[in-house]
């Protein structure tokens, strides 16, 4: 992962206590849970990257994950749709369940899982194909449509929901990589929602975008919440505050605190969280 912003090192806060024994705030929910994560540990070879994270992700909520670089938030995000499987040395223990089904069960079809848990990456990565083909890719490989008309419909709807339709409706045959950065990222979002996932993971989706494109994408995230569950990793605390209902603060591979976003930002329970959100380090 590439950290985009430049950080100025500040003296580490003196009054910050050590990491808490267990996660503070409210990591677990009582009802309407989309994904259950329990006691998740992640290892890269011998190095442990995630320590004992237990967290529920509610249906139709936007959960923001914040924390300093290297705190494991992206790693944790990639566990949720098993993107870490592509890294050989990566080992995951604990349980992650999607609607009650353990996603690391050997019987689980990893392709179907990823169709249910979509992902948008830090850097826009449209395929070097036309705009249309980019969006049609998912429905095609999963055989979601019977004919061209249905596919056209899906492409159009996805682009509309991604707020891109007006801009690209006359250039569906243009190469996706020829769009502007913000448009490319919305194309990637359209591509992800074209297969109608339940959860969308976003890994710093705005860090390569300018402020205007960022605002558009943030608005989009808020709209997408009506239909999807969204987990977003971000380096921008303002962004977390703007788009999310709950926020999780990670530190050195541990989940320090999870709470309703406004409570976490106004009244953090832990010194580390407070130090981070007030900009004293990170």
């Amino acid at each position, binding site marked *: 992962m590439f950290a985009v912003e430049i950080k100025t090192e500040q003296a580490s806060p003196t009054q910050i206590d050590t990491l808490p024994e267990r996660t503070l705030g409210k990591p677990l929910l009582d009802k309407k849970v989309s994904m259950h994560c329990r006691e998740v540990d992640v290892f890269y070879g011998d190095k442990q990257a995630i320590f004992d994270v237990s967290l529920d992700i509610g249906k139709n909520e936007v959960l923001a994950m914040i924390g300093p670089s290297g705190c494991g938030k992206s790693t944790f995000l990639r566990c949720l749709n098993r993107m870490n499987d592509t890294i050989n040395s990566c080992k995951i223990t604990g349980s992650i369940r999607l609607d009650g089904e353990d996603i690391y069960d050997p019987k689980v079809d990893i392709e179907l899982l990823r169709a249910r848990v979509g992902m948008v990456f830090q850097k826009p*990565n449209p395929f*070097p*194909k036309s705009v249309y083909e980019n969006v049609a890719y998912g429905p095609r*490989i999963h055989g979601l449509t019977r004919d061209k008309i249905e596919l056209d419909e899906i492409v159009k709807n996805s682009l509309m929901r991604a707020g891109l339709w007006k801009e690209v409706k006359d250039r569906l045959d243009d190469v996706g990589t020829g769009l502007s950065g913000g448009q490319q990222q919305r194309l990637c979002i359209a591509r992800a929602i074209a297969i109608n996932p339940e959860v969308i993971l976003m890994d710093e989706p705005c860090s390569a975008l300018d402020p205007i494109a960022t605002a558009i994408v943030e608005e989009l995230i808020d709209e997408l919440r009506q239909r999807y569950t969204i987990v977003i990793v971000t380096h921008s605390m303002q962004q977390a505050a703007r788009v999310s209902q709950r926020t999780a603060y990670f530190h050195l591979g541990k989940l320090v605190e999870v709470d309703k976003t406004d409570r976490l930002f106004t009244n953090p329970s832990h010194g580390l969280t407070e130090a981070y959100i007030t900009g004293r380090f990170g």
Partner: protein
Amino acid sequence: MAAYWLGCRYSMQQVAGDRRQLHSMPRYYGYYVALWTALPAVFLLLLWRFLDQGLIVSMVAAELPDIIRNLPVAELHLYLNDVLNLAKGNITSADVDATMQAAADHFKHLQALSDMSLLASLIGMVVAGAALALRQINPEFRSRPRVETLVRWMLAISASIAILTTLGIVLSVLFEAIRFFQMVPVADFLFGLHWSPQVAMREDQVGASGAFGFVPLLAGTMLVALIAMTVAVPIGLMSAIYLAEFAGAHLRTWAKPLLEILAGIPTVVYGFFAALVVAPLLRDGGSMIGLDVSSESALAAGLVMGIMIIPFVSSLSDDVINAVPQAMRDGSYALGATRAETILRVIVPAALPGIVGGILLAVSRAIGETMIVVMAAGLTANLTANPLESVTTITVQIVTLLVGDQEFDSTKTLAAFALGLALFIVTLLLNVLALHVVKRYREEYE
């Protein structure tokens, strides 16, 4: 070496051992002196060697008796050649007489004189160069930029040698081809359907039609190249995909060089493999199922050539597939695509321009390939699309035209230049096309 040491020492002496006062590091003063010592002397040596022979010979010629001097130019040359041979102790063609002996002695004398003066002036040049360079040295002397300029010039000269040589070859082929086209019309060459380059030397000679139709050769070349590509492209591409996407890092590190060794096997080895193993195998196999396979067939040559160019396709394809950003793969996997879907629908299309570039390079290699087709494809210029028959290619004909004793300016010999030019143009076009395609690919992700 000595000059380098001297330059270093002298520059240090100038500042009494305090290198901080020097403009450049002492070794640059050393390089400067060394270069000035060596380069002029080397140039002098080359120039001298280039000129002295002609000069001495003309001096010897001037001393010859009038009778010989008034001989026709060709005979005079012959005579002078004899003199040279005599002087060097080789065999002469004419009988040695007193004049010739005298001339030879004169030549030897002049040669010795020339060598002596060369040595003297070389030493002079070395000393002068070194002294001149040493004189320039003082603490403010900016030796580093000077040395770097000199080095840059040397590099530029080296680079231009390759370019000039290419240019020279192209031009010489072009001019000889033009001479050929003065004898045989261009249209006959380009569109003629018959190739039998036997030119009658006497009026009554039999079997010398002297037809220079280029089409059968081009067709043969294309047929063999086509067969080669049908072998090389699928195998090369699939092995590239396997190596790039499936093979572990360990397998890759030894499998890829191993595959590239295929390209390192001398083509003559492939040639006799094709002629002695593959061709008889095809003939016997063909007769078993009732096909009449010629013992020298386009198929045999094409198959073996295909094996030979597999690494061109696979190695380049492997590189471009690896160059497809991981983000593309992630994007595809994140949409729930399987590995096969990702490879077929994202990676190969994204790498396609690069792959096509690699294939085009392989094609131009196949067209230019000589040894395999000489041995396995045959010599008769058949205009056929049947891969079981023997065909001939442009390169094979160039070889047969020039093998053996030839007049240097007969139509037959000059035809080789025309063929060479045609071959050159075809491969050049393919290369330009390949480079163009590869260049477009580079712009894809930026």
